[in-house]
């Protein structure tokens, strides 16, 4: 059957199971938008293409499926760039589809022509420039396969306008042929045996649980492994939720704003089992002093991550779930009570310093109200965040027991991610409770998507932590620039009125005693809701490993007497 390129695109998208796309139309993708009307796909009209990228990303992370975002050529496509880089850094499977000027105009600086495949080459897992209609079916098939397999990541398809219009025979490719792309699955037997030996010799082992655990669906087998070998588990920012926070072997988050006992455990370990994580500088501190006494075993699907930052003793390249499933029957049962006691001692010391131990002093602390949110929702909500102090406090105090419910921009640290990713997550799980926690700065970066939330009736609860500062930068200026505040003071709009102008019910909370009631009100109000919390202006996130310091050289919260 002869179909236009645009129709072929939609045929292929529906065959991939795509039910929702996030996008924005323009001159170079109008044939795609026209053909869309014939297909059972829901289109979400965003207010800025960056929003579309983050929504598709949030959808992908919440659903475990491939998200789709669309834009026109030129400025439409370049507006996606921040969102593409965000998805790339966090290995999120998103397919981006951009319109491009007609093939015969390429290279001539035509109206809204931009070299989008050139711009996105280093921030995509792969990308395509499509100049003919008969390439589309194969390219779309490949793009989805590449996006979701191996180490997932964003794939961009730039489709020339003539290719959207031309008619050609539609043949759906039955299989993907990519001779240069064969993601690994099992690790070699001999290496598994070496891992078994290292695990057998360890007295102070620690599991580092990364985003790869979530991506490969290894959370169950990870639990078997941890319990069988009696090994405590600490998570990266993106690994949170992959191992239940309520599990006795769970330590919590490691790294720059990780819990002190986690960082101390890593630095004192004799074996690190790094599962689907990449030793980012935010979790290692200075490399020269990182876990000096530990043998390091790295299970990782991307061979280029092996020895990249930390030279490991034993790399096992493969799919984490597959490798762990192979490994669990080979390891013996162990008991590490002494080690766990030692860690518990560090933990108790940390708890004495914790802000959670402070009595109510009438001030509104983000950490306290995140804890209240956690209590009110039974820890069961899908939580997305923006980037900054509130993100770290949410990571620390919204303790998660399940994967795919914690959505935050880790590798890129993209402000503006919170609200759109929550809207995307809502499309994945419309019946679940969804909260986004944002700072006053980051919220304003993509606040226009409030209007999208209203148009779609997205049931997302928006908590804005207003400290009238770019809090995280202010904290660095306080600690490392002798409190010379520069460019961090922010006048904010009346967020309640802003929300109401969009038709979103909203409330202002200024005191601790109003918190629980406001959260309850938000939960009982259908559709999008905004709560603006006027929080302590100059609070700091603790602990903190200063840039360039060893992981256990943390700035700790002073003990309050």
């Amino acid at each position, binding site marked *: 059957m002869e179909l236009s390129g645009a129709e072929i695109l939609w045929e292929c998208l529906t065959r991939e199971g795509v039910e929702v796309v996030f996008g924005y139309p323009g001159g170079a993708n109008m044939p795609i938008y026209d053909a869309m009307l014939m297909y059972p796909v829901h289109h979400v009209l965003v207010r800025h293409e960056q929003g579309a990228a983050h929504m598709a990303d949030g959808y992908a992370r919440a659903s475990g499926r491939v998200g789709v975002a669309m834009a026109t050529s030129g400025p439409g496509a370049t507006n996606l760039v921040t969102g593409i880089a965000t998805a790339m850094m966090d290995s999120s499977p998103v397919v981006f589809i951009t319109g491009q000027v007609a093939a015969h105009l390429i290279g001539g600086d035509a109206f809204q022509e931009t070299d989008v495949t050139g711009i996105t080459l*280093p921030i995509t*897992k792969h990308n395509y420039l499509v100049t003919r209609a008969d390439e589309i079916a194969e390219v779309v098939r490949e793009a989805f396969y590449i996006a979701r397999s191996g180490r997932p990541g964003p794939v961009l398809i730039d489709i020339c306008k003539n290719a959207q219009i031309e008619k050609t025979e539609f043949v759906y490719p039955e299989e993907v042929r990519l*001779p*240069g792309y064969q*993601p*690994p699955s099992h690790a070699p037997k001999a290496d598994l045996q070496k891992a078994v030996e290292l695990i057998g010799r360890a007295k102070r082992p620690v599991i580092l649980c990364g985003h790869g655990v979530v991506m490969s669906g290894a959370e169950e087998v990870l639990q078997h492994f941890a319990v069988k070998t009696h090994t405590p588990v600490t998570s990266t920012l993106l690994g949170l939720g992959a191992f239940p926070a309520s599990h006795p072997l769970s330590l919590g988050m490691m790294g720059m704003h990780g819990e002190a006992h986690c960082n101390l455990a890593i630095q004192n370990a004799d074996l690190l089992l790094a599962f689907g994580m990449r030793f980012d500088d935010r979790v290692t501190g200075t490399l020269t002093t990182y876990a000096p006494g530990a043998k390091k075993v790295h299970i990782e699907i*991307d061979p*280029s991550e*092996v020895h990249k930052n930390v030279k490991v003793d034993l790399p096992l*390249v493969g799919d984490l779930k597959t490798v762990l499933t192979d490994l669990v029957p080979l390891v013996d049962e162990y008991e590490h009570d002494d080690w766990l006691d030692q860690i518990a001692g560090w933990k108790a010391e940390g708890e004495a310093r914790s802000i959670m131990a402070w009595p109510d002093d009438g001030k509104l602390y983000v950490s306290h109200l995140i804890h209240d949110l956690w209590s009110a929702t039974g820890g069961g909500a899908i939580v997305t965040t923006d980037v900054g102090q509130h993100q770290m406090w949410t990571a620390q105090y919204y303790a998660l027991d399940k994967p795919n419910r914690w959505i935050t921009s880790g590798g890129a640290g993209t402000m503006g991610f919170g609200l759109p990713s929550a809207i995307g997550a809502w499309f994945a799980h419309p019946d679940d409770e969804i909260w986004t926690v944002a700072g006053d700065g980051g919220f304003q970066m993509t606040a226009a998507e409030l209007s999208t939330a209203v148009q779609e009736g997205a049931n997302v609860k928006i908590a804005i932590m207003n400290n009238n500062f770019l809090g995280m930068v202010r904290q660095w200026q306080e600690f490392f620039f002798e409190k010379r505040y520069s460019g961090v003071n922010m006048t904010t709009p009346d967020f309640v009125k802003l929300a109401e102008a969009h038709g979103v019910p909203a409330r202002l909370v200024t005191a601790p005693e109003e918190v629980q009631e406001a959260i309850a009100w938000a939960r009982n109000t259908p559709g999008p809701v905004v709560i603006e919390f006027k929080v302590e202006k100059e609070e700091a996130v603790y602990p903190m490993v200063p840039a360039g310091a060893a992981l256990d050289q943390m700035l700790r919260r002073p003990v309050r007497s």
Partner: protein
Amino acid sequence: MQYTFIALVENKPGVLNRVASLFRRRNFNIESLAVGRTEKPEVSRMTIVTDCANDVDAHKIEANLYKLVNVIDVQDVSRQPSVTRDLALIKVRATAEQRAEVNNLAAIFRARIVDVAPDSVIVEATGTEDKIEGMVELLRPIGIIEMVRTGQVAMTRGEHSGIRRTAGANGWREVELEEIGV
């Protein structure tokens, strides 16, 4: 130390750009890069010469090359028995009287004179990098007007193949950990 890689890549538009962009982005240094067709029309072959501190760096280059969807196979032939060749065209200032001298030098290096003009000649030389360097040094005093070199191409001898360090990659064979320097 100089490392030489052979990469088989899909013969598609933009692949060279992907490889070059990768080297730039990861801050690896390309000494020379030669691309050409192979016995299979759908496959191109690159010989990439780079400067790496050690085998761990070489592993990084290999592993990152594999991340490119269009890269089919990568081998490190730096320390394997192999034939490596570079081709140079060197235009030398030479009057009628100097031609004999250039001719003699060329003969020593089994190079050929492929063009003669009233006051210059073009010498074509093929060989290892060292050999060509050696000849260039001797021609320099006579007067080199311009020079072009293809960069190295390489092929392993007989049944030998290069080292593939990247676990999990295509065509990977198990190598002992000691071999990759850990």
